[in-house]
């Protein structure tokens, strides 16, 4: 697995300068509007606003957005199909009714709108900014520290997983089902031992820099922006007003 597209996008986004809190408010506001309002036109509006902001002012390259959207797309399609298909009361086998199709369509539009709104937050906000924000909002220090280390170490481990896997592939490690299982277990075991080795070495490294149980740092300064918040409320109000008007 290469570096997650959303992470790459988030670190490069010009929207990084906005406070994570502001972006959480906007993203969750859009998700909730899409969920509680009737799917048409609320979901469409939310999708349009979210994708417009991602590609417009958020300046996320379209190919990164596409790569990021591939994962959820598979689940959404599979889930939608299973709602669209229903069982007959008489006769055998699955069928499709107008009722089940309506249900599927409304779920599909909710899912697309909700996912787009979450992508807006994910593609413009690096995890470290969200974690510092969580720390300021009273999430226990220990939990934020563990999450921060998880985030740092997962890239170190991802790099090692992909390197080991490509070495195994080169030595024909994934050419049969049996070999694949053997390779996968070797990879998992190697990754686990490496993870703990990393932790131990990092502990020594941090001790040298005066780590005595507190993991505080001084990082980015993003204060919330009045105008960003005003725009957020305006867009949410627009979505609500148009949806209720149409309905």
């Amino acid at each position, binding site marked *: 697995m290469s570096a997650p597209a959303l992470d790459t996008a988030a670190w490069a986004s010009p929207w990084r300068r906005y406070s994570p809190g502001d972006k959480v408010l906007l993203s969750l506001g859009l998700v909730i509007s899409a969920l509680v309002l009737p799917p048409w036109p609320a979901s469409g509006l939310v999708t349009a606003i979210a994708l417009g902001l991602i590609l417009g002012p958020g300046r996320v*390259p379209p*190919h*990164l957005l596409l*790569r990021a959207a591939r994962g959820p797309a598979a689940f959404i399609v599979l889930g939608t199909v299973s709602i669209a298909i229903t069982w007959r009361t008489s006769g055998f086998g699955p069928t499709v009714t107008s009722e089940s199709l309506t249900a599927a369509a409304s779920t599909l539009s909710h899912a697309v709108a909700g996912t787009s709104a979450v992508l807006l937050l994910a593609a413009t906000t690096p995890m470290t900014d969200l974690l510092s924000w969580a720390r300021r909002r009273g999430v226990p220090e220990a939990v934020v520290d563990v999450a921060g280390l998880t985030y740092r170490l997962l890239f170190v481990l991802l790099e*090692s997983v992909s*390197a*080991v896997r*490509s*070495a*195994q*592939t*080169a*030595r*024909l*490690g994934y*050419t*049969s089902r049996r*070999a694949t299982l053997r390779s996968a277990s*070797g*990879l998992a*075991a*190697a990754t686990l*031992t*490496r993870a703990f080795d990393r932790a131990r070495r990092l502990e020594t490294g941090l001790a040298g820099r005066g780590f005595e149980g507190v993991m505080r740092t001084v990082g980015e300064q993003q204060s919330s922006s009045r105008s960003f918040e005003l725009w957020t409320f305006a867009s949410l109000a627009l979505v609500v007003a148009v949806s209720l008007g149409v309905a």
Partner: protein
Amino acid sequence: MNTEVAGLTFAYTGGPPVLAGVDLKIPSGSRIAVLGANGSGKSTLLRCLSGALKPTSGRISVGGHELRHNRSGLRRHRHLLQLITQDPDDQLFSASVREDVSFGPVNQGLSEEEVRARCEEALDLLAATHLADRPTHQLSFGERKRVAIASAVAMRPAVLVLDEPTAGLDPAAGIEAVDALARLHEQGTTLVMATHDVDLALAWADEVVVLSRGVVRQGAPAELLDSDPVLEEARLRRPWVLAVAARLRALGVIEAESRPRDESSLLALLARE
């Protein structure tokens, strides 16, 4: 088994081309050094050669077999060519040395007996027989590097591509690694070594390949590594032997046609004067 690369281009999605039309001819049994600064596309080239990356366009063939990126094509290619990455820990994922070295031959579908023989042979070539029963995590860095090479050698590839085989080694371990490569060379294996060490490249290689901004130049080490435009463009320094020898030729200390390739040949020339 000659290796040929023709018109190789590669670009990551949404990015500029990393390789822009690379042509290489690697004669069977030769020693080739690939030089290039970080970001020159060296790793990408190595990974294309190994089949791990699929080029955007262009062809790679070993012994006349063109690399095709389907299951059987990749399998055949991997019998012919093996890449050894810089960090040996990427290649060592089993609990013991013997198990790790046997991984490739077992996947090649060889009999248990044949696998054993291959492992012995590979460990022997790398002077690592005494390590066979040790757990991999107890080995020194230099030992791990040798075992990683043995793991690829056990598959008997015709071409061995090595990324920085001497990096991070102390001088003694570096010499052991170069000696092991000499044994593989004698045995007929084609060796391609990517390195940052221009002095080693000059001393070791039959031909060098200098990579810069996605294109390559291939030629004789003493010529390419003595050319100001080539060195500047690739952000390489001139091997010291070439710089010193040039000055000594100009001063008439050594003969005008002397072309020493390493410290010992330069010292030998100076002893004769």
